[in-house]
């Protein structure tokens, strides 16, 4: 089969299988749904890789129902499979494969419902990456959301349920705004095909409708991407979802918000100067704010999954910075970093899952020293922490170098310390937790307040070596693909339409400063009582108010989050008024 006929398969195939699983799941033998779901993800991965190979020479455009455009008017829906979309889709399918392997046998109580939801989740993500039609994108966006909402509350405990409510309310408002943006674009351009809309917008005189369409769509996608000030729902949801689900959430779902925005920007808005100006300024600012806030909040957490969730905010902020820079190196860095971060974060959430299954919790303080018996998981976690911190090896480092190169080319050298802060603080938080949990480092916590979480435990029916292998595979993938993906990402960026800027390569100083910062933070976090008294006092004096105000803002009440969402809309309005 040639790649030109392949596009519907990786989306409609898993959908049909999910439908059959729901209808006949209870007729299958006990491990039947596991096997079928795993085979399906493998099939989708293979199809997406074939698509990526086929798209290397140029995007594959597939018109559903054979409805090719007439007289320039698109009347059907197209998949526009480019190198970037197909590569990200392959990555998604691969991540689902390893996650389903990790979750093997974990969810077998309610028939095949978990597998049905996971297959729908994957199919919608792949559809989101491949589609060339903006309303079709909304449909997959929404299927993805509905699957995610259901999976978050799967455990039926109080925290997962209220996390799921916050997640659902925020993302639903986001998707209605997204749909409103589609309505405005349709009013202006009379089409739903991204490429057609892009042509119309580029040739039309500047119109506030185009700006408003961008604002609404961008807000919808930034809510999904959990960027400041739309990010509040993420830690609530990611921290409490079942670990295999968190792997997907932090590994790829959040980053898809940025990827979707990238596709929309390049397909529809490159010809609108005001939108481009706002992209280069406001989105850059929001990205930087996310990097900083996410990093600082990660440091303040003791609940491991919540820490990882905030780290996802921080690293997704780097992706947004890549999009805001928007040149070839920035977009290539975005794509590489997306894959690298997704894999590392997947591994870390799997380690958290191992802790939940074997040690009965993920609270850093409570688990002090309890991970000694399963020290190999600690090694995996330490490697993950170092990679987050920007250790100069592997996919994440490749991506970060590209991003830094783009920042330098755009004259924004001040971004480099921001990157180092984000990488260092998130990596430092993870390293600190590793040291405490797996090596029992640091003094025994005395007057630390009680753990803010309820009893958490995940089923311990999988063997430790098996789970560990699942967690190590993504890390090995990150290391093994070092310097092998750059070329692919660069070609994908070219295909999207990103222009090259002349930039100088960045020295490895950035990577090392991130790692050094992380080690410093981890050490301080573990042994801060040993510091000289005046130093400690000054540090507390400086950090306390910051930490308090950050905690004040991250209140957990969904009403606050919605107010902040409107503040975000106000920021966009102001930005468009100023450019």
């Amino acid at each position, binding site marked *: 089969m040639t790649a030109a006929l392949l596009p519907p398969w990786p989306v409609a195939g898993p959908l049909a299988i999910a*439908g059959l699983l729901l209808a006949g799941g209870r007729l299958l033998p006990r491990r039947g749904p596991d096997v079928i779901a795993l085979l399906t993800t493998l099939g989708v991965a293979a199809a997406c890789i074939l698509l990526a190979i086929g798209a290397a020479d140029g995007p594959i455009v597939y018109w559903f129902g054979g409805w090719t455009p007439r007289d320039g008017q698109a009347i059907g829906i197209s998949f526009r499979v480019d190198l970037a979309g197909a590569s990200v889709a392959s990555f998604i399918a691969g991540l689902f494969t390893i996650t389903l392997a990790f979750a093997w046998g974990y969810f077998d109580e309610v028939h095949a419902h978990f597998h049905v939801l996971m297959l729908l989740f994957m199919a919608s993500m792949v559809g989101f990456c491949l589609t060339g039609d903006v309303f079709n994108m909304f449909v997959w966006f929404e299927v993805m959301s509905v699957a995610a909402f259901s999976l978050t509350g799967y455990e039926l405990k109080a925290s997962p349920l209220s996390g799921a409510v916050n997640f659902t309310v925020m993302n639903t408002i986001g998707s209605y705004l997204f749909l409103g943006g589609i309505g405005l674009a349709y009013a202006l351009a009379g089409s739903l095909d991204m490429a057609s809309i892009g042509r119309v917008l580029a040739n039309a005189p500047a119109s506030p409708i185009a700006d408003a369409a961008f604002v609404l769509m961008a807000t919808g996608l930034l809510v999904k991407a959990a960027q400041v000030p739309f990010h509040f729902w993420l830690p609530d949801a990611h921290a409490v979802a079942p670990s295999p689900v968190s792997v997907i959430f932090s590994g790829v779902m959040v980053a898809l918000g940025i990827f979707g925005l990238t596709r929309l920007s390049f397909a529809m808005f490159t010809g609108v100067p005001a939108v481009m100006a706002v992209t280069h300024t406001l989105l850059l600012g929001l990205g930087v704010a996310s990097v900083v806030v996410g990093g600082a909040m990660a440091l303040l957490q003791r609940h491991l999954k919540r820490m990882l969730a905030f780290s996802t905010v921080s690293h997704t902020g780097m992706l947004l910075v890549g999009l805001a820079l928007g040149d070839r190196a920035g977009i290539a860095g975005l794509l590489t970093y997306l894959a690298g971060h997704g894999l590392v974060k997947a591994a870390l959430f799997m380690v958290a899952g191992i802790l939940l299954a074997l040690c009965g919790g993920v609270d850093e303080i409570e688990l002090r020293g309890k991970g000694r018996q399963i020290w190999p998981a600690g090694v995996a976690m330490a490697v993950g922490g170092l990679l987050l911190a920007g250790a100069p090896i592997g996919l994440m480092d490749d991506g970060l170098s590209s991003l830094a190169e783009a920042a330098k080319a755009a004259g924004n050298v001040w971004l480099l310390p921001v990157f180092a802060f984000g990488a260092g603080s998130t990596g430092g938080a993870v390293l600190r937790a590793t040291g405490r949990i797996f090596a029992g480092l640091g003094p025994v916590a005395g007057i630390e307040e009680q753990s803010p979480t309820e009893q958490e435990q995940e089923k311990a029916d999988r063997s430790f070596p098996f789970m560990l292998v699942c967690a190590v595979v993504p890390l090995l993938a990150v290391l093994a693909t070092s310097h092998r993906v750059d070329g692919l990402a660069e070609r994908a960026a070219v295909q999207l339409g990103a222009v090259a800027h002349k930039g100088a390569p960045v020295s490895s100083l950035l990577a090392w400063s991130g790692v050094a910062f992380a080690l410093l933070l981890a050490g301080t976090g573990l042994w801060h009582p040993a510091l000289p008294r005046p130093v400690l006092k000054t540090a507390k004096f400086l950090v306390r108010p910051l930490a308090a105000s950050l905690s004040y803002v991250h209140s957990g009440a969904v009403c606050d989050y919605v107010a902040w969402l409107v503040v975000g809309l106000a920021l966009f309005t102001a930005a468009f008024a100023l450019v």
Partner: protein
Amino acid sequence: MSAATPRGMSPRMRLVLFALAVLAVLPGVVHVAGHMPQFGAHPLPYGDAINAAAPPERHVTNMTSAVNFDYRGFDTLGEEFMLLCAVTGVTVLLRGGRGEGTAGRPGRTGHRPVLPRTDAVVLTARAGAGVLLLFGFYVALHAMTTPGGGFQGGVILASGMLLVFLGDGYAAWRRVVRSEAMDACEGLGATLFALCGFAGVLLGLPFGQNILPLGTIGDLFAGGLMLVENAGVTMAVGGGFLVVFIEFLEETRVVPGADER
């Protein structure tokens, strides 16, 4: 380390923040509304292209159905599976906490007496259910010609079935129509839609292209593959909404001996 449990904004503070943000957005909204194309008088190239093409090419008279099932049928495929996803989610969330039991008695609130079901109630419910079911089928069947279709028909059918349950004694019916049957109806309906798409692919045509004779325009059974897809949507929506109704109604019943969850 983590600070004390965050208190967050006071309601007044939140309202002030919201009001300030709205004030900032407002000029933008006014500006955009002032530049919107003239209501009812701007070009609609996409809609016009469909209105011109669908009657001769697809032999149907309801353009919305033509868009839903053919021109943009792939969207509807996603929509059906969105519904399936939500139904699965609701099932997980509600049945997961309750177990699979269906033998319950109606829960009681306060001191409201439980009225015995009189013949008149049963009769009215049966009559109403009959009318609703017929109407549902009618709406679903006429998708290609007049307003309505599988989605609207499916919701009406599910409501009709619900009325049957309520009129004739819930528990008895629940033993006859089991959740498995409704799951199967829902899953198979959505899968039928997907398979309709693949039918063309297997013949070397693009996904979702029509492969059946189109029939005469204005006829109830014109539209080719769209008819099968419409049937799939009816099944999926009818089954899906019924599952949701049932799962929620189960929550208003008390399972004897159920312990505190």
